[in-house]
């Protein structure tokens, strides 16, 4: 049951036939792991909380720096040096007190990813490097939790949804490779993060309310230079060393 306050707060989206009161209750029961609280995570945390997603696990390893503030609109000049999860939890809590927030200041890695994910129904990828995404991908497959990927650089961004055991996985697209040095952070523009993370939010809503994800098996790309969206069909790679290995679906 929604309280009168909640019914009013969410009335403009409850009015959508695809959501309605039932969808709103599903959002309220929804549990999302937001991996990364930078440009993508800023949008994710705000929109997911505003829409009434009931529980957010907000994870980041960093503290707020001056270079973050051109795009990471969850954090302000007053938050410099603060751990990002703490800064994020404060803003999101003010936005929507109905949203339960767990702020986790840690690096997502092989050793903790599956445990961090244990109580979540969706992985919202807002990380900023390929290795973290390989880790999230393996946790997604192991825990059977959908993985909503997004990435940006320069004027461009991309997004896709990986459904364990059914659609292509992150490693079908980007096979794991021997460890190499992480490239320097790319140039990034705030609105590109806004566009890509907003698309990821829509996919997350779809997953939470039980609608079919639209980007499973598809890679969506956006260019802010040509103002074009393009999609590419991505099939499962029969040679994928990750999702092609039956052992990846079980807890070690």
């Amino acid at each position, binding site marked *: 049951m929604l309280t009168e306050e909640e019914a009013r707060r969410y009335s403009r989206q409850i009015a959508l036939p695809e959501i309605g009161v039932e969808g709103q209750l599903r959002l309220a029961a929804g549990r999302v792991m937001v991996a990364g609280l930078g*440009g993508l995570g800023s949008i994710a945390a705000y929109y997911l909380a505003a829409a009434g997603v009931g529980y957010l696990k907000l994870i980041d390893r960093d503290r707020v720096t001056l270079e973050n503030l051109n795009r990471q609109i969850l954090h302000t000049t007053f938050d410099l040096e603060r751990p990002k999860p703490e800064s994020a939890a404060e803003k999101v809590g003010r936005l929507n007190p109905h949203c339960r927030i767990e702020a986790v200041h840690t690096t997502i890695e092989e050793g903790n990813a599956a445990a961090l994910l244990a109580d979540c129904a969706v992985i919202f990828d807002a990380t*900023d490097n*390929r290795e973290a995404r390989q880790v999230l991908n393996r946790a997604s497959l192991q825990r059977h939790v959908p993985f909503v990927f997004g990435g940006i*650089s320069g004027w461009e961004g991309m997004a896709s949804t990986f459904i364990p055991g059914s659609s292509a996985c992150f490693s*079908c*697209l980007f096979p794991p490779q021997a460890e190499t040095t992480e490239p320097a952070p790319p140039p990034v523009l705030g609105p590109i*993060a806004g566009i890509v993370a907003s698309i990821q939010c829509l996919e997350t809503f779809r997953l939470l309310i039980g609608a079919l994800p639209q980007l499973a098996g598809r890679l969506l790309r956006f260019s802010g230079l040509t103002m074009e969206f393009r999609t590419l069909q991505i099939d499962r790679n029969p040679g994928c060393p990750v999702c092609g290995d039956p052992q990846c679906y079980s807890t070690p």
Partner: protein
Amino acid sequence: MNAAIRITVNGLPENVPLSATLAELIILFQEMDRDLIVEHNGRFVFPQGYASTRVAPNDRVEFIHPNFGG
């Protein structure tokens, strides 16, 4: 010199050797990004298919670089 064919690469017309493979085009166009995505006539090609996929006249090839920032 092998016969050349006209194809479209990243939206631009290009002359490439007849029957060139995607693996050869990746080298020719210096697209050796370790996380490159290759689209051939609107289809995603798995890396294991680069060496065996050949282009024909009027084919469209896109070299897509990943966006991994956040």
